């Protein structure tokens, strides 16, 4: 009787293997060079920032007659991104454009994709250097860190007091790079000697966690004078908390955010200024670069120059990075100019 159970198991197992073996082998060969089937894989899909970038990608797709799709996890973790990379590899897309939650965790899966001939372009937050062809950096890392500190200093009366950072996830490449740049600037520039960074909190790009982390910051550091939140989900959650607890104006807020989400807070003074870049352009450039790689028009080598449609000419630097442009500061007088 037991052997019958065992044999059922064997039967099931063999059925699968036979079916698989008869199936299309490696899932078909590579796509023809002219086909542009490019997928965006952001850190997480519930994020308005990435939705804006996606619209830029869609715009480029239309301009180049390629297809665009966006897939991604609901939670911003590297582990969650891996199955999506594998699926895209199975589906044999021409290129994957990815913003990494964890640069190392997704590297093996990305390398497997690259081995199959799929191009990998990083955007917003870079995967490990050997797991991507090119990385589109939205703005110079150091410049972002420097400007964040400068803005919070501007906002705090006397430029002195405790400040905290509300980040996204603890492993995100871009966040860690910016935070390091901020720390370097605080240490080296005597103008900021009165500011003290007391805590880096992680909101995981989740509105709820960002809210509770902000509340915790306000509770544990009653002398807090400023919060820097270089993530769109974090800065809008922090703004909401400051208003709700009545601390708006007493604790200053700055960071990176989208104008639509922050418009109200800029106008009522909760957040006097914040920065970003043209997120739609980021998506557009990322798609364009990926397309050029797929079509073989560029190889991703340092010093290569290329023209990205309506954005003009770009050069790949020694590390395989392409810079979109300088950050843009939003204040009350210009926040109505852009709509995203």
């Amino acid at each position, binding site marked *: 009787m037991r052997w019958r159970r065992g044999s059922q198991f064997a039967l099931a197992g063999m059925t699968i293997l036979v079916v698989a073996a008869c199936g299309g082998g490696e899932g078909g060969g590579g796509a023809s060079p002219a086909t542009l089937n490019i997928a965006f894989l952001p850190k997480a899909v519930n994020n308005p920032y990435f939705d804006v970038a996606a619209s830029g990608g869609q715009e480029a797709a239309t301009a180049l007659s390629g297809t665009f799709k966006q897939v991604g996890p609901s939670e911003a973790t590297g582990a969650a991104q891996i199955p999506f990379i594998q699926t895209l590899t199975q589906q044999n897309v021409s290129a994957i454009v990815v913003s990494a939650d964890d640069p190392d965790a997704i590297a093996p899966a990305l390398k497997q994709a690259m081995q199959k001939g799929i191009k990998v372009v990083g955007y917003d937050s870079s995967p490990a250097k050997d797991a991507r062809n090119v990385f589109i950096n939205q703005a110079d890392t150091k410049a972002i860190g420097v400007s964040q500190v400068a803005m919070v200093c501007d906002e705090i009366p006397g430029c002195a007091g405790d400040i905290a950072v509300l980040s996204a996830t603890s492993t995100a490449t871009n966040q860690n790079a910016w935070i390091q740049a901020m720390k370097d600037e605080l240490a080296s520039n005597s103008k900021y000697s009165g500011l003290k960074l007391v805590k880096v909190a992680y909101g995981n790009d989740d*509105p709820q966690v960002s809210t509770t982390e902000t509340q915790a910051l306000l509770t544990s550091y009653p002398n807090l004078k400023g919060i820097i939140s270089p993530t769109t989900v974090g800065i809008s959650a922090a703004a909401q908390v400051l208003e709700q607890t009545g601390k708006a104006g007493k604790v200053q807020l700055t960071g990176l955010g989208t104008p639509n989400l922050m418009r109200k807070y800029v106008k009522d003074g909760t957040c006097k200024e914040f920065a970003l870049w043209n997120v739609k352009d980021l998506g557009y450039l990322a798609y364009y670069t990926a397309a050029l790689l797929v079509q073989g028009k560029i190889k991703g080598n340092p010093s290569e120059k290329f023209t990205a449609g309506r954005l003009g000419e770009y050069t790949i630097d020694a590390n395989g990075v392409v810079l979109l442009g300088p950050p843009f500061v939003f204040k009350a007088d210009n926040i109505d100019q852009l709509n995203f």
Partner: protein
Amino acid sequence: MSVRVIDAPTDSALARRFGLERTLTLVARLREVGILLVLLAVVAIVTIQAPLFFSVSNFEQILLNVSLIAIVAVGQTTVVLTRNVDLSVGSMVGLVAFATGDLLKENTLGVPGAIAVGCLLGLGLGAFNGLLVAVAKVPAIVATLGTLYVYRGLDFLVAGGKQVSAIDLPRDYLGIATSSVLGIPTLIVAAALIALVAAYLLRNSGAGRELYAIGSNPAAAEVVGIPTHRLIFGAFVVCGLCAGIAGVLWGSRFGSVNALAASGLELQVIAAVVVGGVNIFGGSGTVIGAVLGAILLATIENALRILHLSEFWLLAIDGAIILLAVGTDAAIRGYFQRILTRTGRR
């Protein structure tokens, strides 16, 4: 004259000695007092280390954080008393939170309308759980594990990757979380009211006491003529309603809602319920105990932050507290058992 049947030897021996009413009360009060003592001890210790812990605004903050969990804990207690459990509360809260937020964003029904729909939705979700457990006889752990998945999945389907942000929500709705009644924040008042009403009903109404009976000894309860299926169904409906209320208030409290809202809430709630002295096998425990359990856990979390201790200890401490709480319960019961055996009562 109604017959009450009790299972645990301790309770029956005590019951014969003191009478049922006083036994249940005794055990319950013992636990509630115990938690209060621990709470006071924690407050005292932390205040010595960091005086700013002991302030009205800080305590208010703690209670605000607890209010939503406490509401859900009330519903969960009702279910656990009947020897069941509801693992889907997190998903129910999340689904209602997003649905309510979405309705408010479109502003088709106005604020009261959206709130009413949210509560009804919670009721409905709870009713489905109740159907699975009471009618289809699926064990509660399994049924609610399944609905945890299903409701969360529905939440994602409805959300479609979008979120509802604070700027989308009407001012009056957001104002609920910041307004107060006689100086006490509305959320705290709401949670307290719900807890008190539930506590009263559970203790003083026939249905309430029958819930205890079902949890103590389901077979006996049936024999005696208690409509167990109907009551268990009702318990799940109540749990759903509580989750619905918490979901409706969620958007107001947190400002933005996405499909991940309230993920993992079920574990926090069950922890609060267990720490609060509610027996996971049913039959004993009180709503007040569960609420106190929630407050204790939230106070400890707050204390860790004030003391600038790494919040990474928080989860480990929570786990240790759960083990401690359940262990203490068992030890107390064992103690009473030994005493009563020694005095010759069986």
